[in-house]
């Protein structure tokens, strides 16, 4: 998985990068299955590997497919990244061990969901009952975010090229109109 991500950082052909990011999502989905998160894996496989790759390809077809050639590895960003990574790895030494049932994340509300949701909700899939019932507000917010994103895309791209759109530069408009005529 890390190899795929690294390749995506290096390759200059954007088409290959986008396909690699699709493969990356699929590998992430496999990882989620091994970590017992079947619902999440399902979503990642459908969304990450399917829809977002498709959208990126659509963007590429509207823009250019090759990245401009750059041969140098930039030193300052690399140093920043390595420093941040080192600090984060130092931070992991205080993390609870992987899979520890007594880690702080496991003892707060999760036991209640696991023990009570069968009686209170009557739905075997705990993820569904938490998603739709215990955290209904949260999910409502997420749905509204998706709705807003769709509206935003419609505002940005929804009309044809013949109309004036806010933010479009006047000289570009005249050029495009000439082309269309």
């Amino acid at each position, binding site marked *: 998985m890390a190899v795929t*991500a690294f390749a995506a950082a290096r390759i200059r052909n954007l088409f290959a990068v986008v396909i690699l*990011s699709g493969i990356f999502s699929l590998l*992430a989905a496999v990882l*989620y299955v091994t970590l017992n*998160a079947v619902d999440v894996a399902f979503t990642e496989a459908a969304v990450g590997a399917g829809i977002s790759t498709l959208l990126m390809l659509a963007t590429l077809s509207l823009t250019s497919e090759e*990245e401009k050639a750059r041969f140098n590895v930039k030193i300052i960003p690399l140093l920043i*990244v390595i420093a941040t990574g080192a600090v984060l790895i130092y931070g992991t030494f205080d993390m609870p061990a992987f899979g*520890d049932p007594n880690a702080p994340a496991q003892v707060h*509300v999760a036991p209640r969901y696991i023990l009570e949701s069968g009686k209170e909700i009557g739905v075997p899939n705990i993820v569904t009952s938490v998603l739709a019932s215990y955290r209904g507000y949260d999910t409502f917010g997420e749905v509204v975010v998706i709705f807003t994103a769709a509206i935003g895309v419609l505002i940005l*791209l929804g009309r044809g090229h013949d109309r004036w759109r806010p933010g479009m530069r006047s000289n570009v408009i005249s050029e495009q109109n000439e082309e269309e005529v």
Partner: protein
Amino acid sequence: MELFGLLNYWLVIVLMMIGFYIVIAQGNLVKKMVGLSIFQVSVFVFYISVGRVAGGTAPILADGIEVFSNPLPHVLILTAIVVGVATTALGLAMIVRIRDSFGTIEDDEILAIEKGEDDK
């Protein structure tokens, strides 16, 4: 065993740093979006790893199973993935509009064009 326990977090950090590097060092805007989504996936993997319980199964109630993974991170990430693709789409839409306005999706060229206009 102790080291293996941290391996997952290290994978997360490596992925996160690759995404971070792409976002800050690469000039192409589409590539920056790919970097952002790699960063995003690293955070998702982190949450799911935190929610993992040794010996647990997927959080679906069934007879004879006592140990489950923590369902809460699953819920959060499930919604975050879908929201993530929606925001990615918004970013891509902005890239398309930038390309309409400037004719390029490389950030240094865009800066050069803007600077040229300011000087005029």
